[in-house]
């Protein structure tokens, strides 16, 4: 095995301003602490960890975007990094012009892009819009084009940060396929993702970063993931109910007051044991002023990071634009028969004005509850749980 990346005692400190007693002082923030790592050719290294654990900082240092505070990295081979899809896209320029720009920016020469142009366009599926300025593209189209360019870069070392979070399912599949292809060609990939399924499927090695430290590093990808998830589910914010804390960020439109998961008898619960019984969400929101097109909702995320679905007040009837009364609004939402696998599920709540702005984004929402699904008890064999599927319905296999 040839070693392509050698990281020795890498640390990075950021100075960031913080407010303390109405004074702004700067504080050192250690994004990475003494990380050492050796990556061999052909390694598909998954990097997991919470937001702020140092994953992106590590990738930024590897792509030479920022310099380490101390430590040393030795790399051999051409490095291609895709830290954010659409980097370098210029809205006024056409798709074609942007392919060249973006390619240059990622380290391809014009001659190289000429050679791969057809292939890139084919992969992106935006062939009909090549002469259209990119600003008229949908975000999905932009993503597709950007990934297409990056995927054809053919570097010896490919660095990817959470690009699969965007794009539709079909395109995600295509991207994963392309990455597998890169993998099979013996190149090295460093891959940051919150999507544990993608990590599990793609990577042959996984490291877990926690507060800038490397806490796990193993070729047993699943075991690193489950350790990480166990740790994540211990977190205090995964309560089965949510009540407005005192220090929450306020806005002048809407605020969440409380969220509970209730059973049919209106008792708060933290576990769903059986999808045949009825469960309800009780959500109280306070509305401060008459706001047209206001909507609140939530999304359900599995412990692997897969988003199962979204639900929002705007789903019911989008002509019903003034659903909210000024004051406290209480919703009772019956949960559908989901037939989820056993596990921990998280509900992130969000609020926004339709077609205008997001007030609370589901991606960084502190407004969340979690519940456990434990349906094993009703099964003789829990084979279902070992399958890599999201749902685990028990169907009635009956001979006719």
């Amino acid at each position: 095995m040839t070693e392509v990346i050698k990281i020795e005692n890498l640390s990075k400190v950021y100075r960031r301003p913080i407010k303390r007693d109405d004074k702004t002082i700067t504080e050192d923030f250690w994004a990475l602490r003494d990380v050492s790592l050796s990556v061999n050719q052909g390694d598909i290294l998954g990097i997991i960890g919470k937001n702020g654990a140092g994953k992106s900082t590590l990738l930024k240092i590897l792509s030479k975007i920022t310099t380490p505070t101390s430590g040393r990295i030795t790399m051999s081979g051409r490095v291609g990094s895709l830290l954010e899809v659409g980097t370098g896209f210029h809205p006024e320029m056409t798709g074609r012009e942007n392919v060249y720009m973006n390619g240059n920016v990622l380290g391809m020469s014009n001659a190289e892009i000429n050679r791969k142009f057809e292939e890139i366009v084919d992969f992106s599926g935006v062939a009909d819009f090549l002469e259209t300025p990119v600003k008229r593209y949908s975000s999905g189209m932009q993503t597709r084009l950007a990934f297409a360019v990056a995927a054809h870069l053919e570097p010896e070392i490919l660095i990817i940060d959470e690009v699969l979070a965007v794009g539709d399912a079909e395109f995600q599949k295509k991207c994963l396929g392309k990455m597998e292809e890169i993998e099979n060609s013996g190149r090295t990939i460093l891959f940051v993702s919150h999507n544990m399924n993608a990590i599990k499927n793609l990577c042959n090695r996984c490291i877990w970063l926690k507060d800038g430290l490397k806490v796990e590093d193993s070729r047993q990808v699943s075991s690193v993931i489950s350790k990480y998830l166990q740790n994540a589910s211990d977190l205090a914010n995964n309560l089965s109910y949510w009540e407005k804390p005192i220090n929450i960020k306020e806005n002048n439109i809407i605020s969440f007051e409380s969220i509970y998961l209730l059973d049919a008898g209106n008792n708060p619960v933290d576990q769903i044991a059986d999808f045949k019984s009825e469960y309800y969400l009780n959500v109280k929101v306070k509305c401060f002023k008459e706001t047209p097109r206001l909507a609140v909702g939530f999304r359900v995320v599995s412990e692997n990071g897969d988003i199962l679905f979204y639900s929002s007040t705007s789903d019911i009837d989008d002509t019903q634009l003034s659903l909210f009364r000024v004051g406290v609004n209480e919703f009772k939402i019956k949960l559908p028969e989901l037939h989820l696998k056993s596990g921990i599920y998280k509900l992130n709540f969000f609020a926004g004005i339709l077609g205008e702005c997001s007030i609370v984004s589901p991606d960084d929402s502190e407004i969340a509850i979690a519940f456990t699904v434990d349906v094993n008890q009703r099964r003789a064999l829990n084979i279902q749980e070992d399958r890599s599927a999201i749902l685990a319905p028990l169907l009635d296999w009956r001979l006719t």
Partner: protein
Amino acid sequence: MPVTKSLNVQKNVIDSSVRKSVFYQIKEIWLYREIFIALAFRDIKARYKQSVLGLLWVIIQPIVTCLVFTIVFGYFVRVDSGDTPYPVFVFSGLLLWQFFSRNLGEGTGSLVANSAFINKIYFPRMGIPLIGLLASTVDFFLALVILFVLMIWFGVAFQPQIIFAPLIVLVTLSLSYAGALIFAPLNAIYRDVGMAIGYGTQFLMYLSPVIYPVSFLPENYHWLFDFNPVATLLDWMRWALIGTTLPSSRAFIVLGATAIVFLIIGRTVFRKLESTVVDRI
């Protein structure tokens, strides 16, 4: 030529104390040249893409400025521009002045303007101020064509020393690049720098013989212009284009020394602040 291949194929070391030689830096900028050229073209295209008159603006702007100065200073104030008709005189100065001041202004703002890239991809950042310089050099040569038209119109003879023009452009570029290297990282940290540069250049314009010839002032003040490198550049360019007198050798020594010293200071300041800028931008 795969851009990064030649740089990355050998062992590539990243650590906290990367000391790169000047030659390495120049070589690196050269290897990434396609990005810089693409970014310069992006700037040029984006600037004119949504305007109806498009590239005509490159011509309209200096003509209008020239017209205003001709009316105010040539007609009302009656600045004496010697044998050269005032419009040709003022245009030959404005040409280089606008080139210099735009270079300095855009160079100073270049790190902020390209922050979207700086944070996401690596390329030699010292090349970033060059993007604006490339774009405005194109504008300069277009404006030069207008000067030629004006010269023919007013019957001003072309000079053989015009072959020095590219050299003068190069010296102007070096001086404004040096300024951009100093001010661009400072501006990325404190935006006030950009504002101050904006006012500063306006002020400098009146201190330099752009709209008036040096002979407009009493003779015992003329030596002062020797210590203004921009004045030397302007008079040097006028000498090459319309055959006015060449600045003194003392003026050239000051110009050369300023350019070299500023380039060295610029490189030092830029290197010192580069990583701070990347983390804070």
